[in-house]
């Protein structure tokens, strides 16, 4: 049960676009989103996920992260304390910044997914030189 003080995984706000063959709750990974000079960095906590089951989609400015996570304990486990649930991850973002989709890269280590979204050339800040008209 979620105590107000307990930092549990929030459930995903929206259901996946496609019908899933397996039921159960899915969870919204907590993320940090950082903007650097030449890229956006999305860092998502997805403990229990495995690299092979993570799916990342980028289409028309919409970024979707999902992962299938199998239960780690049998369904009939009687918990003395059950403060969080285990299940699939799903989260979707709208990215209004111009991104170069061909150069998106991702790393996954220790349950943390790091996504690099390089900015498209056009959206990088450009220094405009002022010429003096003499």
């Amino acid at each position: 049960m979620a105590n107000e003080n307990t930092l549990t995984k929030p459930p995903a706000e929206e259901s996946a676009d496609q019908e899933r063959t397996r039921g159960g709750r899915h969870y919204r990974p907590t993320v940090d989103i950082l903007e650097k000079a030449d890229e956006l960095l999305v860092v998502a906590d997805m403990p229990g996920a495995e690299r092979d089951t993570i799916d990342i989609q980028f289409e028309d400015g919409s970024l979707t992260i999902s992962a299938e996570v199998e239960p780690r304990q049998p369904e009939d486990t009687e918990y003395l304390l059950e403060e969080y649930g285990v299940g699939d991850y799903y989260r979707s973002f709208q990215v209004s910044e111009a991104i170069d989709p061909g150069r998106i890269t991702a790393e996954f280590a220790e349950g943390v997914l790091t996504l690099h979204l390089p900015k498209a050339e056009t959206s990088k800040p450009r220094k405009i030189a002022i010429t003096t008209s003499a």
Partner: protein
Amino acid sequence: MVFRCVNTRHPLNQFRDEMDRLLSGVAEYTATAGLWPRTSRGQRAVNLWEEGDTLNVELEVPGLSSDQVDISVVAGELTIELNRPGSKEEGVLFHRRERWFGEIKRVLRLPFDVDADRVLAELHDGVLKITLPKAENAKPRKISIASVS
């Protein structure tokens, strides 16, 4: 803001959140009444269950390496200390900052004596699992009844 979250909340999710809010008061009560360990703001959620002669404790600690986790068993209490440093990147703009960081301590009162020498902890894909075997004196013992004749 660069990012916008798609926000179409499912009615079932709303209902569950509402129930969680109603019931969180009960959790608060059991915690303060000493039925279950004391709570502190910002602690990590744990799952705890018995499996045969062991007690299992599981926490989600994404991004932590084993030297950022400290586990000790003293006087019937399991103490788990976590230290996840925040991002040290400079000159960046945070659009979102939801991931927890800092030092977190969680103390759990154990329901029975454990064999502290045989406690195991493993960290895999950001999930920490601690296995605490029951002490000999905590294992169930069959008492045979002697017939007096």
